[in-house]
């Protein structure tokens, strides 16, 4: 067991403890206030507009492999899909999801099935589609799908690379709103330029908290902020110690 492993283990344990503590504190207080993120504010409006106009919402979950760190953003996308499915319960056009990975595709269909069961409506397995299994085949499949369906807003939350620009371009041509977040640096740069509402860094993981997925989502956001400030402090301290020749 090396020292880096032990350090990592303790960081995870502290994170876990803080999440529990903050979740308990939130329970005692009323309606915790979250930092405003323009993208999620606009998403709320887009959901309402889509329900009124009878258009669909499209959630694209990317190609995150389940045995890699990319799976986390895929799970966040699934959580958002679930929340949106419940929010648009009065719409006659439920949200539709696309993905580029087999496991994500199955989880997408399963999530939609459970949401349909919760709402007491019939589930359609073709609303969760795998549009391609390589980056560009996935993009090509998704953009042709955006062309064909009447989509009011596109949420691209998952692991994407440069190819995401093709998807956002198709969405823009159909005059649909685009909100995008990814765990890939190149994909983030592309989304900053191409998406109407880009999510940067950890903002991509905050969707659940802003869509009312539960107390633990909000607690995890607070803990991320606490740990971030601790890390900033450590980095600055390290830089100062280096500057003065201590390190």
């Amino acid at each position, binding site marked *: 067991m090396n020292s880096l492993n032990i350090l990592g283990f303790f960081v995870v344990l502290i994170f876990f403890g803080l999440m529990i503590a903050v979740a308990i504190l939130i329970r005692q207080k009323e309606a915790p206030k979250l930092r405003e993120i323009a993208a999620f504010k606009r998403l709320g409006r887009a959901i309402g507009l889509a329900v009124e106009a009878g258009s669909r919402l499209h959630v694209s979950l990317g190609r995150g492999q389940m045995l890699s760190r990319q799976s986390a953003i895929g799970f966040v996308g699934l959580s958002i899909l679930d929340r949106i499915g419940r929010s648009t319960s009065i719409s006659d056009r439920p949200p539709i999801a696309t993905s580029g990975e087999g496991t994500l595709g199955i989880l997408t269909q399963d999530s939609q099935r459970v949401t349909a069961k919760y709402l007491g409506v019939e589930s359609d397995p073709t609303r969760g589609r795998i549009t391609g299994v390589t980056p560009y085949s996935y993009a090509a499949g998704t953009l042709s799908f955006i062309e064909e369906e009447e989509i009011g807003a596109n949420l691209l939350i998952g692991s994407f690379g440069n190819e995401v620009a093709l998807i956002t*371009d198709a969405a823009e041509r159909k005059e649909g709103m685009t909100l995008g977040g990814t765990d890939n640096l190149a994909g983030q740069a592309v989304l900053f330029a191409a998406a109407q509402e880009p999510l940067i860094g*950890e903002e991509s993981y905050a969707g659940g908290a802003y869509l009312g997925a539960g107390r633990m989502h909000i607690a995890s956001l607070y803990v991320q902020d606490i740990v971030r400030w601790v890390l900033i402090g450590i980095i600055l301290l390290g830089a100062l110690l280096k500057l003065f020749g201590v390190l």
Partner: protein
Amino acid sequence: MGADWYYSIGSSSEVIRCAVRNPLYPAIAIGVGIVVLLGYFLQIELLVNVRIIFLEWATILIGVALLIGVINLFIVHLNKAISDHPSRYNSIALLVGLILTLLVVGWFKPTHAVSVWIFKYIQIPIESSLVALLSIVLIYSGVRLLRRKPNLLTIIFLATAVVILLVSGPLFGIEIPGLAALRIWIGKVPAVAGARGILLGISLGIIAAGLRILMGADRPYGEN
């Protein structure tokens, strides 16, 4: 997955259905997650061995999921091909391509010259043409960004992209003084600093998302 249990309250004319959460799926997810996490950090032989077994099972399941994904793709396009959908010809082309590729690769094996030919002379050129299209789309996106958000951040973003592009390729033999040094400085200082900041945020997001699943607060496996 995700079989909910229900019980009913009230008379037959007014029944309220209350979902009772099935504890089996979260228990499996949390249990396996904790073993894999501990096996990663603590190098105890038993934990490491169990972790490897779980990862091997997951790898097999991912392979099966890919197969199911291809079947899903086939069914969606088959339904479209037999309907009077305007884009049914695209679906027919996809189905023909899929069946032919499966037959060829299944008959000759994936590493045979004929299978490699399909990959080399059909798939790679098509994907390359999409990459070429991407460069045009990105330029267009840059212009659209300037129209949508004409602020200082956008100008810095686009100016940086232009500087990197100018130095990345030959510019008719012209050398703009200081541009190469500026590109090196951008690559070494602001780009690295920004990337590290973003990666730090992503890492914290990944830890939070993982712990939410381990606690059962987030259940992406349908049972809810």
